[in-house]
């Protein structure tokens, strides 16, 4: 394959599944070969796109600024770290006032803690403030992609599913339920909003 390197697709994955992942791998010996995080539903992720609510931000740097953001989706929390090598993302985190809907494009990063467990975070390429419509669209998209991965998990030709079975002891059925619950949550909040529009008394 002598093709120019193609851009890695940004996977859609909910926070719970993302944080359950821990295994990373390369597909070539090349030093600059992309590093992939193995998703438990059987897909490789070198880049992710997520939209959620920034609930907290904190400069955890010693000396240099190093911003940590907590971004919440219907299933859990993404941790995003941005420092001097991600100047735009860092300055966005500095300027944003939580709570706020944000969209993040970034790379998965893993970090092994002293007790041997693996923490997963996102190193952002960009963070932008978005609206609730974009956030809802992402939840639907992430649910669909998750369900598609679960549906393809038993396919014999699915090498990343095979890898996930070897590396993780996790039930993909859990992720199916999680994705459906996320959509049910959206559906319910829809109903609440439309009910509110008709019945709720006006704010005093």
């Amino acid at each position, binding site marked *: 394959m002598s*093709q120019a390197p*193609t*851009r*890695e*697709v*940004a*996977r*859609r994955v909910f926070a719970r599944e993302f944080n359950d992942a821990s295994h990373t791998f390369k597909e070539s010996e090349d030093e600059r070969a992309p590093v992939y995080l193995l998703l438990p539903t059987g897909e490789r992720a070198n*880049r992710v*796109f997520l*939209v959620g609510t920034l609930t907290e931000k904190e400069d955890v740097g010693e000396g240099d600024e190093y911003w940590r953001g907590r971004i919440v989706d219907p299933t859990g929390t993404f941790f995003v770290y941005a420092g001097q090598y991600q100047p*735009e993302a860092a300055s*966005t985190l500095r300027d944003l006032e939580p709570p706020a809907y*944000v*969209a*993040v*494009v970034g790379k998965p990063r893993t970090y092994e803690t002293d007790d041997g467990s693996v923490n997963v975070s996102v190193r952002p*390429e*960009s963070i*932008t*403030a*978005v*609206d609730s*419509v*974009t956030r*809802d*669209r*992402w*939840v*639907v*998209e992430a*649910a*669909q*992609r998750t*369900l*598609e991965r*679960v*549906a393809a998990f038993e396919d014999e030709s699915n090498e990343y599913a095979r890898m996930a079975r070897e590396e993780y002891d996790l039930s993909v059925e859990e992720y199916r339920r999680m*994705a*459906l619950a996320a*959509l*049910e949550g*959206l*559906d319910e*909040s*829809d109903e609440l909003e439309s009910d509110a529009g008709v019945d709720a008394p006006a704010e005093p």
Partner: protein
Amino acid sequence: MTDLHTHAEDIVAQFSDHLDLTVDEVEERLENLVNEYRVPVDEARRSVVNSYLDEAGLERDALGGGGNASVGLAEIDQDEQWLDVTAKVVELWEPRSDSVAQVGLLGDETGTTKFVAFETSDLPELDEGAVYRLENLVTDEYQGNFSVKLNRTTTITEVDEDIEVGDDAETVEGALVDIQSGSGLIKRCPEEDCTRVLQNGRCSEHGSVEGEFDLRIKGVLDDGEAVHEVIFDRESTEALTGTTLDEAKDMAMDALDTTVVADEMRIGTLGRYYRVSGPQFGRYVLVDEFERLSDPVDAEAALIEARSI
């Protein structure tokens, strides 16, 4: 002559379903016409094909099977497929290599595709805007994009009709996940027909030039399955960002820095979902039309669909 030999092979292939021909006998007939009677190769081929059509009791159109496919230009989906088309030369481009005689865009009712004619094929030149019957083209594939190559066996006949070239716009959608360098407020080379984007005030062809301001966005739409590179020209960039070229120049002037324009654009557009359509050139979809996907999602419909996955 190898040339005639190739024609002979093609003809044998064309009639393989109908007649039991040998390359030698076909070549001999071609040779007779070309060398003895001084008939041009194209005409000789035509005449030989016609006589075999008679022999097989076929109409010219009936040459399917072993013959060339007739496929719409925008519908080509195979590499190394032999084609006959009637097409209009929509655009001629500047060849980038000495081995290329002509390169440009051919169009028919289904849409457009790139074509290349090589110097070694020694073919008559095609004129922009003219319509031709082109027989014996071969398709080519590069990174999923198809084009057609003219070759020395290609016959070119100008036809006296116009073709309404179809619109084969690609439509892609996804989240805008990147705005690449070379976006925002840029300068283009002012030399006639150049328009290359300047790097540090230099054109790769014309060196250091004054440069004319322009706006564009080279973006990446990503739907979680595939990435699509898209280019917004000045008009669509202005519509997308709400920033006009003049406003962008003012912003850059105030900041004494042109990169603030792209930075502003990133803040206003990254992470949102868009659907764009326009012609595909190489890796890029050139945006003619776009819309922000800002309708509220139908959670109930999504849930019904999701339960069926």
